[in-house]
Structures are given as structure tokens and as C-alpha cells.
């Protein structure tokens, strides 16, 4: 039964994963953290960080991780497959009608309409990660601001910034 729940939860996330990457974080948070309680807010944050440090899309990484936690290796396989299933089916359908799809005025209007939602979803993800315990005290705030300034002013790889911030964490919280 839990495997079916896992399948449905991640199929739903896959079906509404517009805008890619960070825009799907609120979907995962709503279903997996708030509704199903399969991750705490803190674990969710850790999964986001781990996803950034490993290859592959966040949606896949989160599915694999949550699936393993809930149902072991079989759970991780089911969650990963189910998050891919709706997109794959849609791509296979659309490829057959490609020309009509691309020039369709409804499709274009919907896609333009989705832009504000993608920005709002990513912004709300940042907000709820802060609320969920991402920044709780002054040292964390300083690391956050410093990382932000470095990301905006230097052409440093985000993964490198994350690793440095983690090492700084190990040193200052000793």
C-alpha cells in the first residue's frame, strides 16, 4: 500500500513539474513533508543540498532518496520511475504531433502564463527553506549572505560555494 502511495505521490509531482529544478521544490515539500510526513523540514533541506552535490536533476534525486527512506531499494526504484512516467508519456505523445504543438496558440499562451508561477514557486521555496530551519542564528545568516554575495559577484561554481560553506560550518560549529 505504501508503495502505491509512493507511486501516486511522485507521479503527481512529475505531472506538475513545470519550470524544472527549484520550481518543483514546493510540490515535493507540500506532498512529501506536509501531507505525507515522509521527511521532516530538516531532512528536506538536507535532501535539497545533497541533490545539488550529486549529478542529476533534483526531482530524480529527491524521488530516489525519499523512495529509499520509505520503502528501501524497491521504494527508491518505484519513486524514481513514477516521477519520470508522466513526462515521458507526454513527450512521446507530443513528438508525434510536434509541428501542431509548437505553433498552437493555446500552448504558447499557457507557457507564457506559467512564467510568473515558476518565479513565485522558486521564491516560495527559498522562503520555506528559511522557515523550515535553514537559517536559525546569526552565524548561519552570515554564511548565507556571504554565499549570496560570492554567487552574485564571482563566477564561482555553485557546488564549490556549497562545499566551502559546509567546511566553514564544520570549522565554526566545532
Amino acid at each position, binding site marked *: 500500500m505504501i508503495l502505491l502511495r509512493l507511486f501516486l505521490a511522485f507521479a503527481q509531482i512529475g505531472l*506538475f*513539474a*513545470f519550470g*524544472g*529544478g527549484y520550481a518543483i521544490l514546493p510540490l515535493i515539500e507540500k506532498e512529501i513533508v506536509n501531507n505525507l510526513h515522509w521527511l521532516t523540514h530538516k531532512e528536506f533541506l*538536507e535532501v*535539497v543540498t545533497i541533490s*545539488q552535490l*550529486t*549529478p542529476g*536533476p*533534483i*526531482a*530524480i*534525486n529527491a524521488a*530516489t*532518496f525519499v523512495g*529509499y527512506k520509505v520503502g528501501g531499494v524497491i521504494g*527508491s526504484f518505484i519513486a*524514481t520511475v513514477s516521477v519520470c512516467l*508522466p*513526462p*515521458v508519456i*507526454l513527450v*512521446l505523445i*507530443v*513528438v508525434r504531433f*510536434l509541428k501542431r504543438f509548437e505553433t498552437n*496558440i*493555446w500552448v504558447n*499562451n*499557457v*507557457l507564457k*502564463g*506559467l*512564467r*510568473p*508561477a515558476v*518565479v*513565485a514557486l*522558486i*521564491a516560495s521555496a*527559498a*522562503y520555506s527553506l*528559511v522557515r523550515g530551519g*535553514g537559517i536559525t542564528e546569526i552565524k*548561519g545568516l552570515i554564511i*548565507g549572505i556571504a*554565499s*549570496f554575495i560570492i*554567487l*552574485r559577484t564571482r563566477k564561482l561554481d555553485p*557546488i564549490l*560555494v*556549497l562545499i566551502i*560553506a*559546509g567546511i566553514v*560550518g*564544520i570549522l565554526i*560549529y566545532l
Partner: protein
Amino acid sequence: MDKKDNIKSKFELALSIFTVFFKIGAFTWGGGYAMLPLIKNEVVEKRKWLTSEDFIDGIAVSQSLPGPIAVNTATYVGYKLCGTFGSLMALAGAILPSFVSILIIAMFFLRFRNLKVVQDFFKGANPAIIALIVSAVIDIGKSALKRYREFVITLILLFLLIYLRVHPILAIVISAILGIIFGEKR
């Protein structure tokens, strides 16, 4: 070429599709958009599997549909080359590296996450990931929000999401409907 050879060469093609996407999946950090130049390099320039136009069409489709862009692009390229079988091989190749690495990490992490050194690492890295996401909001906002109206809709949706705790799917549906209402008429 008789039928047996045909099946054999199809299988070989599917296998090399798998290998190409496995390689790309294993060496791309930071999600979908980072993969696109690598996929283009392998599929269009090096192997000449697709023309540049076909590839651009594929990216347009991948971005229009829900789902991780890496998943959608792999499915598209695989299908173009070798039908549904090809799309499944491309997909398997693209997601296997992240599946395996997360599985290994999950096995160890769930056991070691309470170690102080692990927790301290996250205490430092968590604010940085938030900075990364805020930075993404600025970049994506700059390129996606061209009009005053879009900016206002973004703020309203943000209010709905944060304070009224509206389901993200509802926010997506609302903005799709607004897109149709305010969009070009044929």
C-alpha cells in the same frame, strides 16, 4: 540488409544511446540546463544523430512539458533515433548515475546523519543552498518577467503560496488560466 541484421543494428544503436546518456548523466552536476550543451555536443556535433534544428525542436518540447529537462530531452532524442525503445534506453542512461549515487548516499546518510560533523556540514551548507535559490529567483525573474503585469501576478502568487498556503498545483493552474485570458488571440 535482412531482418536479423536490422534488429542487430537497432540494438547496437540503442546501446550506444544508453552509453552516451549515461556518460552525460554521470558528469553533469547542477541539473538539467547544465546537461543541454553536453547533449548537443554528443548528439548533434560529434555523432550527427540529429540536426541542429531537430535538437532545438526537442528542447522547445522539453521545456514546454512538465518534468526534468534532462528526462524530457533524453526521451525526445532516444525516440527520434530509435522509437520508444530508444527513448527508454536514453532515459535509463540519463537517470541511472543519479539513481545509483543517491541510493548509495541514502544508505550511508540515513545511518550517519546524526554525527556532529555531518550536521555541522549541513549547518554551513544549508544557508548557502538558500543563497543559491535566491540567486536563481533573481536570474530567472529577470529573464521570465518582462512586463509589469507578470511581475504583479508573481507577487500575488507568492502571497497565495506563502500566507494562504495554497497548493503549488493551484498556483500553476491559476497562472495557466491567466496566461490564456491575457494571451494573444489567434
